[in-house]
């Protein structure tokens, strides 16, 4: 009998399949994952596939926008065929950051309803706040775990717009984070974040 904390290999229960939306033949969730790290791309792809999601993985924000048809080029494929139900993006990427990608997506009438989740190994309160305020659904700490992704996909398949109160439990409280140090030249320069307020639970509605 497994006790709390005991870990077994390959213990994924057979019925963990939130992306698959089993029953009534509804389409599986299509997730677009964006990360500049090769290792992380492989892991997130496997995580999502293990939950029976359809996955597209790209290495940059600009590639993501290309895929979503937001790069100004006319896509030859009808937009509906590419329909993306969730975007998961790394925060720190060269070129376009996850935050900048988030802004572009939320600034587009065609795409703003798609929930966007930002992932980062750094828990900087100002960064988290900024992403949530810009409309990110959630901010996930890396390394991302199966349980995080599973919770996300379940949230989406249940028609997440109504689930606002549940998701606010996932906000990073003050205890989870280290304050960024404003004097460091290498921290995000756009935030002056020595304030210690906890992140505001402002949520954006995501479409059904």
């Amino acid at each position: 009998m497994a006790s709390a904390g005991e870990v077994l290999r390959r213990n994924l229960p057979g019925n963990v399949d939130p992306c698959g939306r089993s029953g009534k033949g509804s389409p599986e969730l299509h997730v677009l994952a964006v990360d500049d790290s090769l290792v992380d791309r492989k892991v997130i792809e496997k995580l999502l596939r293990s939950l029976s999601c359809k996955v597209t993985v790209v290495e940059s924000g600009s590639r993501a926008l290309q895929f979503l048809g937001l790069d100004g080029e006319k896509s030859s494929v009808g937009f509906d065929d590419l329909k993306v139900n969730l975007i998961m993006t790394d925060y720190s990427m060269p070129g376009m950051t996850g935050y900048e990608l988030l802004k572009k997506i939320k600034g587009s009438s065609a795409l703003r309803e798609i929930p966007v989740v930002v992932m980062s190994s750094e828990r900087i309160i100002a960064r988290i706040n900024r992403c949530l305020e810009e409309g990110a659904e959630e901010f996930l700490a890396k390394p991302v775990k199966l349980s995080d992704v599973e919770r996300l996909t379940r949230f989406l398949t249940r028609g997440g717009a109504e689930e606002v109160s549940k998701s606010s439990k996932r906000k990073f409280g003050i205890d989870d984070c280290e304050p960024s140090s404003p004097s460091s030249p290498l921290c995000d320069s756009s935030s002056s974040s020595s304030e210690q307020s906890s992140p505001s639970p402002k949520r954006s509605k995501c479409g059904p």
Partner: protein
Amino acid sequence: MEVALMQRRLEDYTKSLFMEGLLDAQFLQLQQLQDDSNPEFVREVVSLFFEDSQKLLNDLTSALDQQIVDFRKVDSYVHQLKGSSSSIGAQRVKNTCIVFRTFCEEQNAEGCVRCLQQVKQEYYLVKTRLETLYRLEQQVVAAGGSIPAVEFNSF
């Protein structure tokens, strides 16, 4: 050697990697994701990590060798190494990177050089141990055995 003995040896070896802090729970997460549809998943991810890390270590060596060190660049490399080591559960490499970044923030070249040495050591150590782990697994499989489920009481 009998399969059961090989399996036992493999199990003990795996446990030692966790006990010594070389690997953490994230590695277990990867093992849990591996299944029949992708039985080489962990090895593939670990191989990517090796390739990625080798390149980053080379870049770091070169960056710290400059007359005038670009700490922002060095920090960026360390950040990437920290990320990938964290994603596969290479705990000691990750922890060394955390210390390394504070030296970058302080623009302390000597501290950075020392950390680079240490991170290289940690990296080569975990690489060697993971390669041995993989060899032990192969031996078990070649002898007709299956890779035993690993159980731990606490982490």
